[in-house]
């Protein structure tokens, strides 16, 4: 290495040889030559423009490190002289390249500069003292680059913030990328994320699906048809449902970059939809039941009304007839009494029906009030059975009572009588011509009344339903009634803290057992 200063004819006086001078004056890249101490010896016109000085004389002789790196000391990008790339080229003789140098011009404007520093070598290839610098203004590139970085950051943030799991499979490379949501949704293990292998990911996903074959067929189809979009619902073994959408990933120029998969967990939405459909069905069923009830109720009220109207008009007719025939044909007092009794019976039947209707309203709104008193259930059972013996006999039912007493407890007398009446009335209605047995048993805490008929019985499927409002196990074209008797019974029994059960089989009669605690449960 020759240790001498620049020789004339090379860069002496900052004048390169004629051809080199023309080349250097023509190019857009700034070129600066430094002496062995780092002072500027030459700058081409592009360098004068880039460094923002008025002429080459403002550069020549000045320390280049000072020019390029003159910054306030607090600037974190400031180089010390030792770290300066120029110094490295000068002292160590190694070329350096700094892709991003911020340069502050004398007028205060800053530009981004791509800076290369080369140790000087002579024509013979020998190292010479000094260095050459090229400087390129990359401010515009930097801006684009920054914008791109910002866009990518936005896209990444958007993808991470998405409630959809996003999985991208880049075409040939099969390079995978997931967003965090996709990893959470599928529970993708770390080794698959690290491996970025679409094969591993697919195998992992498949074992989570209810129908892996269908999914696999879809995936294979889509990879064979890269232009197609597709969407469907996939069912996971753990009960979740994902809405799956897949679309080709293409540049605006139409270059295929692979495929993107979106997964949205719609389990809750689907459950809500199902719940809504269920509620809608229930509401429709309730409306239908109410309509049925109204039509049955009007039918049921018309039947005793028919008897009442015929019976009273018949009495009036007979009275009128006797009036025109005179004193001689007075109506026998027994006849009048019998007819009036008949009318009163019909009136009680009607009022019982109407009471039932009012009960529905009271029970439906939870306004059932119990008037409890100390009473003997055995006595009450015998009383109610006796009261209905005639009606049961009209259905051809012989009724037997086995109620060894006393069975003391604190109950609502009228409501209990209503429970027994409804059960006996059903026994007569559905057990025509067959015996009915009423039994009472008790233990320390509760009393139990069973009403057993030997009628048409209840199919297992209907055994719960019959206690619902407006429900009945048989067609209303065959059996009249509101379809409310057992519902009323069960509501009253529940209000008394008791329970009702049924034991029956089709054609083998039915046995209803009401269990009543001796004391009302204390209100909460």
């Amino acid at each position, binding site marked *: 290495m020759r240790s001498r200063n620049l020789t004339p004819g090379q860069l002496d006086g900052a004048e390169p040889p004629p051809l080199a001078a023309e080349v250097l004056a023509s190019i857009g890249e700034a070129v600066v030559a430094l002496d062995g101490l780092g002072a500027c010896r030459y700058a081409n016109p592009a360098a004068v423009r880039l460094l923002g000085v008025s002429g080459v004389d403002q550069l020549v002789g000045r320390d280049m490190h000072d020019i390029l790196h003159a910054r306030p000391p607090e600037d974190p990008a400031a180089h010390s002289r030792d770290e300066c790339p120029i110094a490295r080229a000068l002292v160590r003789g190694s070329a350096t390249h700094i892709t991003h140098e911020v340069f502050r011009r004398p007028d205060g404007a800053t530009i981004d500069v791509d800076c290369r520093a080369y140790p000087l070598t002579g024509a013979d290839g020998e190292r010479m003292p000094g260095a050459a610098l090229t400087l390129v203004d990359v401010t515009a590139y930097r801006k684009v680059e920054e914008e791109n970085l910002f866009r990518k950051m936005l896209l990444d943030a958007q993808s991470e913030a998405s409630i959809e799991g996003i999985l991208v499979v880049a075409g040939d490379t099969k390079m995978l990328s997931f967003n965090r949501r996709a990893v959470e949704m599928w529970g993708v293990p770390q080794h698959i994320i690290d491996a970025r292998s679409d094969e591993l990911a697919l195998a992992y996903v498949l074992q989570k699906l209810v129908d892996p074959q269908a999914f696999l067929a879809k995936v294979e189809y889509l990879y064979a048809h890269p232009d197609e979009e597709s969407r469907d619902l996939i069912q996971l073994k753990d009960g979740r449902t994902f809405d799956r959408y897949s679309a080709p990933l293409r540049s605006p120029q139409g270059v295929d970059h692979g495929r993107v998969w979106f997964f949205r967990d719609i389990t809750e939405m689907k459950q809500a939809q199902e719940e809504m459909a269920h509620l809608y069905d229930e509401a429709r069923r309730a409306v239908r039941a109410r309509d049925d009830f109204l*039509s049955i109720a*009007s*039918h*049921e009220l*018309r*039947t*005793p*009304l*028919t*008897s*009442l*109207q*015929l*019976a009273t*008009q*018949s009495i009036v*007719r*007979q009275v009128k007839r006797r009036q025109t025939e005179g004193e001689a044909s007075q109506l026998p007092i027994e006849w009048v009494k019998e*007819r009036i009794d*008949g009318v009163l*019976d*019909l009136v009680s*039947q009607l009022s019982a029906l109407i009471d039932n209707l009012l009960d529905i309203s009271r029970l439906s709104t939870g306004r059932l009030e119990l008037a409890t008193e100390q009473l003997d259930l055995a006595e009450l059972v015998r009383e109610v059975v006796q009261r209905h013996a005639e*009606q049961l006999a*009209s*259905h051809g039912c012989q009724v037997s009572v086995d109620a060894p007493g006393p069975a003391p407890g604190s109950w609502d007398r009228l409501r209990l009588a209503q429970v027994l009446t409804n059960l006996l009335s059903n026994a007569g*209605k559905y057990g*025509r011509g067959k015996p009915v047995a009423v039994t009472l048993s008790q233990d320390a805490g509760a009393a139990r009344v069973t009403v057993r008929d030997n009628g048409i019985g209840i199919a297992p499927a209907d055994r719960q339903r019959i206690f619902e409002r407006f429900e009945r196990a048989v067609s*209303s*074209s*065959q*059996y*009249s009634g509101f379809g409310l008797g057992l519902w009323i019974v069960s509501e009253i029994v529940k209000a008394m803290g008791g329970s009702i059960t049924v034991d029956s089989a089709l054609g083998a009669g039915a046995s209803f057992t009401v269990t009543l605690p001796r004391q009302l449960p204390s209100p909460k």
Partner: protein
Amino acid sequence: MTLTRRAVLLIDDDPTIRSTVSRVLADEGWEVRLADTAQEGLTQLAGGLQPGLILLDLTMPGLTGAEFMELRQDIPGAASVPVYLFTAMRGAAEQWAALGAQGFVPKPVRLEQFLRVVEQHCG
């Protein structure tokens, strides 16, 4: 004239309807036969009963009124007996002809109207 009077056959599962109608008609001097099921009505007809009028409820346990209308065709002499539906069902006004009945008596009914039907067929 009384000698030519024919009976009314009332087929109805409701005991109070049966007892009321039989009392009312008996007071007017009509003979009433009662059946609490359609099957029982068919049995009486098959046994040779020739009423002037059959009053038929539609909703009954066992055979319904409509089934009764079908089955009575097989009983000699029964098919020609006029049948009136005696029902609280709203659709009876449109239904009776299709079922092969001669008419219908609504529930409830005014006594005069009721007796007019009986008079017309049994008198």
